[in-house]
């Protein structure tokens, strides 16, 4: 025989369970309704239209091993990293065109990200290790292709930037590296055009390093060294 007080206690617990279930169910329904109402009434934020500015693309040509500047008007965001990625994407679109003078498949999606970091030791920029060709001066009889490109960006309205140099880390996709034509000239032109384009549009960028899918890689397509830092103003002799 079950004592009376246990029957009463069990009944109260059962009743409390039922009440709590009902309350929980109602709370869930209210939350669901709030969610639906929130979705319906969420204001649709109009996409911010980036102002169009003039961007300088330093385009390579395989036929004469040259780099030539092209000025294009592009909608570019203010964020320097995003701006750098979009400008490089446009450069890669030019290379992916059927009649490109420097054909490289892949297009804008070849550049996954561009990270901008302060140069670790700006003071050492002037006196670098022998592998750093910043101090390398081409022979006087070999004019530099970089000399044919504008030294400053052609983007009116841009705020003057402080002189502190930046390191750009360009993260390329493995698909781009795998499909890049193999050869010293073509690989070198790709890297130098990227460096020159970055410097032309973001003058604070003084050095460029390359990653492929976020990882260091020995060469781009079997030749040009990707393990070192490239100077943004690296030179190419005129053919």
């Amino acid at each position, binding site marked *: 025989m079950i004592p009376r007080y246990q029957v009463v206690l069990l009944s109260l617990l059962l009743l409390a369970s039922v009440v709590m279930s009902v309350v929980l169910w109602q709370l869930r329904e209210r939350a669901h309704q709030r969610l639906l109402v929130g979705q319906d009434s969420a204001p649709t934020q109009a996409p911010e239209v980036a102002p169009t500015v003039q961007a300088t693309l330093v385009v390579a040509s395989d036929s004469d091993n040259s780099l030539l500047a092209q000025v294009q008007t592009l909608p570019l965001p203010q964020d320097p990293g995003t701006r750098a990625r979009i400008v490089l994407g446009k450069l890669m679109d030019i290379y992916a065109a059927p009649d490109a003078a420097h054909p490289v498949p892949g297009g804008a999606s070849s550049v996954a990200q561009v990270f901008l970091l302060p140069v670790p030791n700006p003071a050492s920029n002037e006196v670098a290790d022998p592998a750093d060709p910043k101090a*390398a001066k081409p022979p006087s009889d070999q004019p530099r292709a970089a000399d044919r490109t504008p030294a400053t960006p052609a983007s009116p309205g841009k705020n003057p930037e402080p002189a502190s140099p930046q390191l750009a880390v360009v993260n390329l996709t493995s698909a781009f590296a795998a499909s890049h*034509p*193999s050869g010293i*000239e073509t690989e070198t032109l790709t890297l130098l055009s990227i460096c020159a384009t970055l410097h032309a549009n973001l003058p604070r960028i003084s050095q460029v390093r390359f990653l492929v899918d976020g990882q260091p890689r020995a060469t781009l397509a079997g*030749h040009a060294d990707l393990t070192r830092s490239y100077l943004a103003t690296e030179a190419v*002799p005129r053919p």
Partner: protein
Amino acid sequence: MVLDPAHGGDDLGGRLGDNQAEKDIALAFSMRLRSLLEARGIPVVSTRESDVTVEWNRRAEVANHANAQACLNLHASESGSGVHLFVSNMAPAEPMRFAAWKTAQAAWVTRSLALAGTLNSALLQAGMSVTLGRTALPVVDSMACPAVAVEIAPERDHDKKVTAQLDDPDYQARVAEALAAALLSWRSEGRQP
């Protein structure tokens, strides 16, 4: 002289045409150039004489042990035209008793530029189109000798049409003859390392 035909073995290099790999063109050209040099009495050391894999560091080791008057790193490519000559883009540095492996070429860059100038003159005299450039190649950057990377591309006319393919024996012979003449001149001028 040291001849370094690039790639080899598992490393095919660039794809040239339908069934050709850069490693084969580089090796064939190296053998042709070697014959011409030895016929002129110039001793030659090759980093590879068959289709084998040779690591980058091993190539530089061979070149550095040879104490060579000139080191040519041989490549082939379908892009561009004529012959591309590349010198390391490292800044010239004073020779040191112990040079860092990855930057050994820095002390030789000035001589390498002079060697490239000699090769350029000979190729132009032979009617070739030549482009000069600076680049970063791991093998060349570790060489302690006057070193130039020679990349042979198809010969094209003014309309960009190919007039001589990479595997054309006559084209290879003309390039090799010009380079051999240039290296003979370089050697006779006594530009010792």
